[in-house]
């Protein structure tokens, strides 16, 4: 089996790529456009702008890791490829945040699920928020285009047992289920997507749009942190950036000044509002960092009679939207059902116990099946999201109080997932909750769930989907950018990532980011080329 690493090939062919850690003196560089961030949004934007003939500089705080580094090793991957070495949490520590920090951003480490923005969500944006240009019909060509670019289609191999149990549970209870579209080409079905794809099968930014941009003469700086956009009168004049040392977290003291005609911020729903706040970008209505969404995720674990081996095989291939929009887009909190892969460190980090209880749960790993629910946030007045602000050191932090409205949705999701697992033949089920025991029947689990407190630090919550914080909208009074990602106050500033979503998506956001970034970058490219 031959595996071609596009990054290795490109570096050998002379791409313009600089490791911030190698810089020993300050310098100034200049381009038509500076793109901050190299994930779903930044990669897409850079490729489209570079193909249009514009000079582009990409700035990435994390490292450049590629096939040689992807050895299916949990500890090494979590330490190097994730924000804060996988220790990122919300301000009060109640929600763990899984987010990439490397070239390719979260697309380098995600589990490849690639959904179009649900029509209900786009219709809500069009009808309730006045963004008719984002209707499902208007967006369809952009989804088509990105599905081709990233080789996205429903997975055709059999689901692994972990995913198949979700399918079986849904069949037993009469709930709908479907196959997940994945962005892969020649996938080996190994199960290590979260550690960086070892075979380059994953068609994330790292293997598609980043090489595409660099082939078109874009320049990439990695281990370079975007500190501050500096205005001159009503425009951004330059970006001040700090080179990081080889450890990736300590600035070396060397700075890079990046000048450009236009700046595209694509540093994620935590990083982008953070950068705008640090830069004191005009924000007359105090909107930056507000309405941040997470798809708060809760999970259940089940011990099955037969081996599940949740560490092998495409990590996500089956989902159920039975409860996502059932009660209306702005009714009670709906949720999407999926499964997570479980390797030993991930499992040990998620299961919230110690001692015998932990040892027993870990010993059952090969028989363990897990389900998770992504709760839609931001569609209801009682789900206003969280707020990104700056710590004393200038780093962004997300404060996300979980509202009673969301707790109700999370309890319902616990209920549904345990019911599904028992329907699929689980011997015992546990809620991922500090106070949960293992329950050996559905009635026992249901009765226990009624007594479990739905409260921060008791329910273990997670997220891999950060959205909002630079929300788009018609009016500057309630948004940061317009529906093309163009900043309301600053003409040469655009935001092209999940931070512009005015609500959560109700599905894994990668394809939504690709499509919006492609649409908005194409428009920007024609504007800048004139």
């Amino acid at each position: 089996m031959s595996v071609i690493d596009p990054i290795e090939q490109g570096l050998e062919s002379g791409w313009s790529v600089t490791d911030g850690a190698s810089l020993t003196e300050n310098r100034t560089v200049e381009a038509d456009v500076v793109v901050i961030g190299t994930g779903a949004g930044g990669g897409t934007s850079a490729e489209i702008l570079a193909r249009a003939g514009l000079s582009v500089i990409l700035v990435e705080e994390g490292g450049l890791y590629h096939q040689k580094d992807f050895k299916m090793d949990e500890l090494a991957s979590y330490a190097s490829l994730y924000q804060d070495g996988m220790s990122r949490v919300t301000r009060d520590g109640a929600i763990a945040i899984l987010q990439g920090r490397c070239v390719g951003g979260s697309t380098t480490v995600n589990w490849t699920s690639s959904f179009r923005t649900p029509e209900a969500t786009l219709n809500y944006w069009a009808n309730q928020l006045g963004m008719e240009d984002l209707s499902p019909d208007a967006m369809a060509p952009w989804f088509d285009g990105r599905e081709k670019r990233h080789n996205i289609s429903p997975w055709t191999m059999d689901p692994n047992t972990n995913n198949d149990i979700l399918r079986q549970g849904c069949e037993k209870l009469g709930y709908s289920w479907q196959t997940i579209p994945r962005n892969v080409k020649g996938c080996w079905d190994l199960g290590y997507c979260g550690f960086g794809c070892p075979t380059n099968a994953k068609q994330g930014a790292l293997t598609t749009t980043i090489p595409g941009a660099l082939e078109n003469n874009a320049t990439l700086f990695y281990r370079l942190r975007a500190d501050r956009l500096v205005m001159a009168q009503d425009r951004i004049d330059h970006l001040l950036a700090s080179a990081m040392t080889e450890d990736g977290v300590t600035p070396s003291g060397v700075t890079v000044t990046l000048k450009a005609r236009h700046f595209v911020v694509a540093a994620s729903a935590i990083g982008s509002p953070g950068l705008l706040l640090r830069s004191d970008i005009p924000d007359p209505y105090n909107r930056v960092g507000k309405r941040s969404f997470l798809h708060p995720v809760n999970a259940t674990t089940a011990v099955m009679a037969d081996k599940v081996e949740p560490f092998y095989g495409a990590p996500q291939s089956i989902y159920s939207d039975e409860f996502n929009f059932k009660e209306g887009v702005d009714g009670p909190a709906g949720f999407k059902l999926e499964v997570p892969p479980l390797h030993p460190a991930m499992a040990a980090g998620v299961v919230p116990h110690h001692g015998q209880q932990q040892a027993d749960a870990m010993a059952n790993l090969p028989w363990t099946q897990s389900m998770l629910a992504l709760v839609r946030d931001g569609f209801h007045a009682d789900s206003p999201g969280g707020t990104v602000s700056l710590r004393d050191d200038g780093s962004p932090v997300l404060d996300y109080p979980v509202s009673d409205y969301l707790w109700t949705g999370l309890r319902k999701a616990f209920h549904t997932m345990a019911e599904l697992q028992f329907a699929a033949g689980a011997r015992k089920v546990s809620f991922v909750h500090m106070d949960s025991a293992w329950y050996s029947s559905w009635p026992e689990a249901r009765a226990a769930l009624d007594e479990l407190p739905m409260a921060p630090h008791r329910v273990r919550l997670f997220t891999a989907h950060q959205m909002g914080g630079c929300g788009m909208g018609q009016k500057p009074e309630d948004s940061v950018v317009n529906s093309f990602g163009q900043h309301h106050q600053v003409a040469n500033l655009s935001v092209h990532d999940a931070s512009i979503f005015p609500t959560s998506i109700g599905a894994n956001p990668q394809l939504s980011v690709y499509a919006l970034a492609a649409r908005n970058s194409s428009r920007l490219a024609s504007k800048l080329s004139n």
Partner: protein
Amino acid sequence: MKHHASIPDATSDFTRLDRRSFLKTGIGGTLFLSTVSTSMALSGCASSPSERLTAVGTRMDARYRFQFLTDTDIEIFEALLPAMLAPVLPEQPQARRQVVASTIERIDSGISHFGPPNQSELRRLLDLLGFGFTRVTIARVWSSWPNVSTAEADAFLRRWQSSRIGLFNNGYMALVKITNVAFYGHQDQWPLSGYPGPPRWAMEALPQFNNA
């Protein structure tokens, strides 16, 4: 809520705090922990990373250089690991010491990637546990860490796990999570979770495994 420079006052503030208001303002905990850290620094207890575990203590090739954990932090983890990892730590004393020592090294290595904000949160937590006065008043651990029994360590962990104060739950999760990940995530402990490792056929076929 008022904060004072001296620890006894801060502590009595802490114990007098109305629980609801404390929970509402997570910042209260942060401020309190800052007070502890500042007081420690002022009293000359400022901490710096340990050089390495002693060769005698670990019976290991002690090349690992600690980047974050101090000598006191290491004592804390040496006391807590037997409770956290019971019953899967080896019983044979030397094997046990080696597993504990290598897990603590991986904990340190993991933390070195956390970035400054999360490192300083963890620093406050470990300072609070390491400083005698707060170890007794806040964690209610009476013995110094090298003298803490597994039963005492377990009781401490359970108190913080089941506490109604979010700050303590958070401390529990931080300690347990970094330990569990560092322990169960390592190849030597994979058999404990029945994880066979990455598929051998794939490793044999992939270039990144053939350069060793």
